[in-house]
C-alpha cells in the first residue's frame, strides 16, 4: 500500500533529490533539515516576542503601581525601583540583557509573581499538559471511531445523526464550548466542579487526590476535545470512504473477516499516519485553545499565567512562557512529522 501514502497526508511529501546517496541518509537529512527549519522559527519567535512585548504601552512597574491604594512615589523612588527591578535603560538594553540571560539558560524572573519564571512554568505546565494529553485520546479515538462508523455506511443511521452534530460542534469556538459545558454540567446539572484543578480540601491519600484532580479535569478536557473531535471525525470519515473502494478492503470483505477486525486492523491501521500528520498541526490549535479553556475554568495552567503576564506587562514571564510553549510545540511537531513520514513510507 505504498502508493496510498500521499493521499493520506495532508501536506505534500518533499520530492526526492537526485544523487543524494542512499535513501536512509536522504531521509535522515530531511529529518534534520526539518529540525533546522524549526530552530530558525524558534529563534524568530524569541526575537519577535522580546521586542513586541516591550512595545506594548506601559511597563511592569507602572502596572504594579496603578493600584488605587499606592501612595504617589516620587520620581527618584520610581527610578530606584526601576533599577532594582531591571527595568531601567531602553528597550534595546533590556532585550539585550534578556537574551544574554536566555543563552545562559535563565528564563528570567517575574517581578509581579516574585518568583523565577522557570519555577512558575514548572508549576503550571503539568496542569496544561494534563488537559492536552487528556483531551487527545478523546478526540483521536472518539473522532476516529465515529468517523469509521459513518464512513463505512455513508447515509446510514450513524452518518445521518452524527455528522450534523459534529458539524455544529466544529463551528463552536473552544471558548463557547467551554462555557456551554460549564453551564450544563457545572450549574444546571451540577455534577462536576466549575473551576480550579482540585477540590477545596484535596484528599491526603494518592488515589483520592488523583480522583479529585480527574473530576476537575473532565470538563476542561471535554471542552478542549470537542473542537478537535470534528477534525478527526471528518478525516476518518473521508479516509474510510476512500479506503472502502480499495482492493485490499474489498478483498478482505469478500473473505468475510469479522467487522471488528475490518475496522481495527484494516481501516483503523491505515488511518494512523493520516491522523498523526493531522495531529502535528492540531497541536498548535490545542495550545491556543487551552488558554481560553483554562480561563473559563480558572484552571491553573500556562494559559492563565500568560493571560496575567500580558495584563501585568510581566515581560520575563510572557517571554519565558511563549519561548517554552513554542519550543514544546515545535519539538512535538517535528517528532510527529518525522514519525508520520516514517509510518507513511512503511505503509
Amino acid at each position, binding site marked *: 500500500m505504498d502508493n496510498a501514502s500521499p493521499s493520506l497526508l495532508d501536506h505534500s511529501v518533499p520530492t526526492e533529490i537526485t544523487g543524494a546517496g542512499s535513501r536512509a541518509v536522504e531521509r535522515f537529512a530531511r529529518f534534520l533539515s526539518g529540525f533546522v527549519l524549526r530552530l530558525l522559527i524558534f529563534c524568530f519567535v524569541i526575537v519577535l516576542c522580546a521586542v513586541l512585548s516591550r512595545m506594548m504601552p506601559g511597563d511592569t512597574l507602572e502596572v504594579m503601581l496603578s493600584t488605587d491604594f499606592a501612595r504617589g512615589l516620587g520620581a527618584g523612588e520610581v527610578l530606584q525601583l526601576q533599577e532594582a527591578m531591571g527595568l531601567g535603560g531602553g528597550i534595546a538594553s533590556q532585550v539585550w540583557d534578556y537574551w544574554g540571560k536566555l543563552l545562559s539558560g535563565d528564563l528570567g524572573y517575574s517581578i509581579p509573581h*516574585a518568583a523565577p519564571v522557570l519555577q512558575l512554568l514548572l508549576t503550571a505546565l503539568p496542569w496544561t499538559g494534563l488537559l492536552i494529553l487528556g483531551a487527545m485520546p478523546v478526540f483521536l479515538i472518539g473522532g476516529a471511531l465515529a468517523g469509521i462508523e459513518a464512513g463505512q455506511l455513508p447515509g446510514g443511521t450513524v452518518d445521518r445523526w452524527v455528522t450534523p452534530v459534529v458539524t455544529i460542534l466544529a463551528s463552536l469556538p473552544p471558548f463557547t464550548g467551554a462555557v456551554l459545558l460549564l453551564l450544563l454540567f457545572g450549574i444546571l446539572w451540577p455534577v462536576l466542579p466549575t473551576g480550579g484543578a482540585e477540590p477545596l480540601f484535596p484528599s491526603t491519600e494518592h488515589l483520592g487526590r488523583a480522583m479529585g484532580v480527574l473530576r476537575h479535569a473532565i470538563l476542561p478536557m471535554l471542552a478542549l476535545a470537542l473542537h478537535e473531535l470534528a477534525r478527526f471525525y471528518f478525516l476518518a470519515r473521508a479516509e474510510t470512504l476512500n479506503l472502502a473502494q480499495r482492493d485490499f478492503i474489498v478483498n478482505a470483505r469478500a473473505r468475510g473477516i469479522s467487522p471488528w477486525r475490518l475496522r481495527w486492523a484494516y481501516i483503523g491501521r491505515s488511518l494512523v499516519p493520516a491522523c498523526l500528520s493531522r495531529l502535528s498541526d492540531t497541536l498548535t490549535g490545542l495550545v491556543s485553545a487551552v488558554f481560553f479553556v483554562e480561563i473559563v475554568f480558572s484552571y491553573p495552567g500556562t494559559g492563565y499565567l500568560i493571560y496575567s503576564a500580558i495584563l501585568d506587562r510581566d515581560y520575563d514571564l510572557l517571554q519565558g512562557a511563549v519561548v517554552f510553549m513554542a519550543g514544546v510545540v515545535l519539538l512535538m511537531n517535528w517528532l510527529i512529522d518525522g514519525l508520520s513520514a516514517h509510518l507513511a513510507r512503511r505503509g
Partner: protein
Amino acid sequence: MSLVHRFVHPRFLAHAAAVGLALGAAQYSGLGADTLMAAEPDRQRQLVITDSKGDRGMLAPYVHRKNGIAYLYTSYIFDTLVSQDADGNPAPGLARTWTRSEDGLSYDLELQPDAKWHDGTPVTADDVAFTLRYMAEHPYVFGSVKSLAGVEVAGAHDLRIHIKRAQYGLVEGLFSAIPILPRHIYEGVEDPFRFATSDAAIGSGPYRLAAYDKAQGRYRLEATENHPLGRPRFAQIWIVKMGPDAALQAMSTGEVDVISYLPPDRLPEALGAGFAVETSPSDHVLRLGFNHRGQFQTKEVRQAIAYAVDRSALLETAFPGVAELAETGYFQPGSKWKSEDATESYTYDPARARDLLLATGWTQDSAGRWQAQGGEIRLRLLTDGREVKPAKVIAEQLEAFGFAVDLRVMEMASLRSLVADGDYDLTLFSSSTLGDPGNISRRVFGRGWNSDRFPADPKMTGLIKAQAVAQNQAERQEILAQFQQLYAENLPSYMLVNPLMATVFNDKLSAPFMSGGVAIGIPSALHKSIFLE
C-alpha cells in the same frame, strides 16, 4: 497482527473506566472534603474564606500582589504600629501607646512588651527603627517614610520618631499603613522584591502563614499563641479561590464560612439561603474625569457636562440595585470627614447645561450639534473593560445632548499611557475616597490615571495643606468641609455613583464593613480584629 487493536483497545477501555469512575465520584461530591474536615481535631475552629481571584502572591509586604486585598491578607500576618477598632478609629497595634509632642514634630511610642515574631524572637524598638530605615532605602508601595526625619531607640520597647513637618494624619496614615518587619530576617535582604521564601512571611501578626499553594490560589493561616491584641478565634483560616456560584453552593453545604466579595447582583440568592449579608457602599466612586488641559479647562464647561449627564438614569440603567448616587463633594456618607452642608448635586438639567456652554462661547448648529471655533466638538471618552456599561450610557446621554462621542474601551496599561499623554477628553474610572485625608492631594492633583489630574488650584491646595497640619480633629473637619464645597463647585472630576459591596457570613462570625475602610482604605469587613477574641 492487529497492532492497533492491541495498542488502542486496552488504553481506550482504561480511559473510559477512569471517566466512568470519576463521574461516579461526582455522585458523592464533597465527601472527600467532609471526611478531611471531620478528621480535624477541632473542626469548629476552622474558618474558610473564599476569594474569587485566588492567588494574591506570597503574603509578605514587598512581594504580595499590589492591590488592597493582598495587603489585607498580609495584614493578618504582619502588624502595623497602630491598628483599628470596630469603628475604624486608631487602636493599639504593635505600639501600646503613642504620644504626640507639643510641637507635633515627634512621637513617643511604647511597644507591646510581649509581642513576638512568628519564629519566637521578641519584637523590639530596634525592629521598628530598622523597618523605617529599610523602607527609606527600598520604597514600600503602600506607605511612604519620606516625611520622617529620624528614629531614636530609647529602650527595648520605647522609641521616638521624628518627623520633618507636623502632620495630623500620621497615626491614621503612615503608622496604620506600614507593616513592621523583623530585623533579623530582612537585614541581609538586598532586594526585598525578590525575597519570597517562607521566611519572608515571618511577621508578628495573630496568624502565621502555614501553607501557600500558588497554583491553586490557596492559603492556610494558623493561629499564634499569646498575641498581645487577643486570642485568635480560629485555629486555622483558609483563604481559597472560588467563584461566586461555587462559593454560594459550598456555603450551603457548610464547606465555606465567608464569601469575601459577593457580586451585589447575587445578593437575593445569599439572602434566600439565610446567610448573614453585610453590604456597604464601596466608596470606590465611579467618576467622570476631565482633561483639564484640553476642552475642559473652564469650570463652567465641566459644570455643563455635569448637568447634561443624568446620573439617576445611569444608576437605574447600569447599576440597578447595586449602587447609590454619589456625593459630588468628594467624601461619601459614612465618612467621618463628610461635611454636613449640602453640595451641588447637579440634578439633570439640560437647559442649564446649554446656557452654561453658550455663555462660554460654544455654539450649537441647526441640528443641535455643539461647535467650537467653527468645528464640531468630538469628545473622546476613555474607559477600561470594567466600566463598559456605564460608559455606553454616558456616551448615549452626551450624544443626545448634541456631542459627537468617541467611546474607546481600552486595556488598562494602554489607557494609562493615553491619559498620561493627554490624548482624551473624558475618562470614566473608579477611585477610592477612603483612607486618611492625607491622600487627597495625590487623588485630586496627582498625575496618575486614577487621579483627577486637576491643575494646582491655590484655594484648594491651600486647604489640603492646612488640613494636613491641623492641630485637632475639629479643625481638620472644618477645613475639609470647605474643601468639599470647592470640590463640588470646581469638579476636578464628577462623582457619579458609589457601587455597593457585599460580604456573606455564616453563623461562625459576622461583621459590618469597617467605616472608612481597613488601614490604607480597603473597603472590607474582614479586618483582622474580627478574627480575635
